[in-house]
């Protein structure tokens, strides 16, 4: 039997994965290893970091040095690793809980510092693993297990947040547009500086059933697509209307000095 050419990037004994049927996290794993394969990344020099939650399990399936199991602290780990050994490629997989809720402060500071890592945010609009609670990216009025009367809070636009905080590569796609998402991940991996790729993703088991009344992944993908517009399309809409959509595109790609530590003294050792 012919082996999948991407199988070699996965840690032995970890399949079948633990995701629910129809979950998008497995797709994102696929996008990433496809991008890494096309770039011929050295997996010996790759560190995969996950916090806690469904997305956080993505690096567990990858055959890399990996850290896992602490909620929201992916970027502090990455900061220590990158400062000690800048040769390593560090990729973070964070859900909306890890990135925007408990780890939100670390996110803005990693952006501000332009830490040279790639963060892939799988935004499934809910806390999936814990049972479908409201998250900082849940759209308004949506019913979740902790917003039985509908979400009253304004959701974060993570890309706008990252751009405002100083991230130097920022992009958003969704799981219905795998080719574009994979291309964005490739660009992010080639970028020197803080790169963030947000991928809006279906969670049929939790978000789908509570918020949209369906656990059918196809219907969820259709809904995500209906809510998605490209940045070109968004530019023709009034801002208020565009902000209700998932705006897709590569928003920022610029060069800035990368973070090398809070105290750097060049040349002092030769004094």
């Amino acid at each position: 039997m012919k082996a999948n050419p991407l199988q070699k990037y996965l840690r032995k004994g970890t399949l079948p994965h633990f995701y629910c049927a129809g979950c998008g996290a497995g797709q994102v794993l696929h996008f990433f290893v496809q991008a890494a394969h096309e770039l011929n990344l050295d997996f010996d020099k790759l560190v995969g970091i996950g916090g806690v939650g469904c997305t956080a399990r993505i690096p567990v399936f990858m055959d890399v040095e990996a850290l896992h199991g602490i909620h929201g602290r992916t970027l502090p780990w990455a900061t220590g690793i990158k400062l000690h050994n800048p040769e390593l490629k560090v990729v973070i997989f964070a859900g909306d809980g890890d990135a925007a809720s408990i780890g939100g402060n670390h996110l803005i500071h990693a952006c501000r510092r332009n830490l040279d890592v790639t963060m892939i945010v799988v935004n499934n609009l809910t806390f999936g693993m814990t049972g479908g609670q409201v998250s900082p990216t849940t759209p308004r009025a949506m019913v979740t297990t902790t917003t039985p009367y509908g979400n009253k809070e304004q959701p974060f636009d993570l890309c706008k947040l990252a751009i405002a905080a100083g991230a130097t590569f920022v992009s958003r796609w969704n799981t219905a547009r795998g080719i574009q998402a994979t291309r964005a991940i490739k660009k992010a991996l080639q970028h020197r500086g803080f790169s963030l790729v947000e991928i809006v993703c279906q969670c049929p088991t939790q978000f789908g059933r509570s918020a949209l009344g369906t656990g059918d992944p196809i219907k969820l993908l259709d809904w995500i697509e209906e809510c998605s517009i490209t940045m070109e399309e968004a530019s023709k809409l009034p801002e208020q209307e565009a902000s209700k959509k998932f705006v897709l595109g590569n928003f920022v790609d610029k060069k800035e000095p990368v973070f090398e530590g809070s105290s750097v003294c060049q040349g002092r050792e030769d004094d």
Partner: protein
Amino acid sequence: MDGKTKRVLTGTHFMLGNYAVVEGAIAAGCDFFAGYPITPANEISERMSERLPEVGGKFLQGEDELCSIYSVTGASLAGAKAMTATASAGYNYMQEGIEYAVAAEVPCVIVDVQRCRGENFATQADVMQVRWGAAGDHEMIVLAPASVQELFDHTVWAFNLAERYRTPVIVLSETTIALMREKLVIPQPEEIEIINRKRPEQPPGEFIPFDGGQEGVPPLPKFGEGYRILHSINPHDPWGGIQWDPDVFEKLYDRILGKIAQHRDDIVQTEGFFLDDAKVVLIAYGSESRPALGAVKEARANGIKAGLLKLVTVWPLPDKEIRAVAEKAEVVLAVEMNVGRYAYEIERLCCGASRVARVTKNRGLVHTTKEVYQAMEEVLG
């Protein structure tokens, strides 16, 4: 100056306690430090920010204590000898990262300069926080220096213990000694014992990353060497695979707790003063051992057979050593700068062997020699 001379500032100094910690760390090979501003630990960060770049290390001022402790664990797994420093209220936040360092067996050093709640006055009120503060079952190694010299020596020792046992080690400092200037003698580099973590002998693929062997301590490769290990807090088997299996969980923590318990005699240190014929024994740790020793000397001058057991490590508990003095003494005095926390352990260990009295002070000030002496006189009647 060559790099080596810069790393170890050999010579006699009149140095601030917080600076002595920095010099101890750098002498031990520390090449990563992260910290968040908090009084009375700030001088550690400040000196680190100047000294580390000089010796090729990295300094990070984290956005909070969580960033500090997790960047320390990340850097350590990447191959650094890493440290953070904080004070009591900041240690609260770090408990989370210390739990990870315990479970994932990440060597690192945490300095806690104890301060009173909401104020920077002196205290020893964290003696239980540092033992029990992290979630889940764990052993903890906690060293209690009592002078500027010991802040240097114990910081070196803390790195050695962390590296040897793949575990977080706490240096339990105090406002008193952290902000005190005293004589410090820094030895020649070759006179300082340095222990580095064991590296795998097998190549990737043959190496079993969480097999502790006889010692219970698995070797630890650096990131980037091709070992591709999963460092998860979740229960993991010897290969690092996450397993929801009661046997895996039990075996993992039997080993992680056992590696400290098994080497208890190598870790625990106490110092005895005038104990041979002592009828009244003071037990103290950290800066409180100083007035306690003063009171013992005064008692001896006045014909009272007093002695001091100074606890150099407060955790693991020096249970045998405490019990041994209780067996010989008539009265044991638990001397502490808090409402009486460690005293519970001393009472438990001395129970049935000798009478125990508490000498506590919880007003942001270290005991004076006179106060300890008077307390001793009262107890003796």
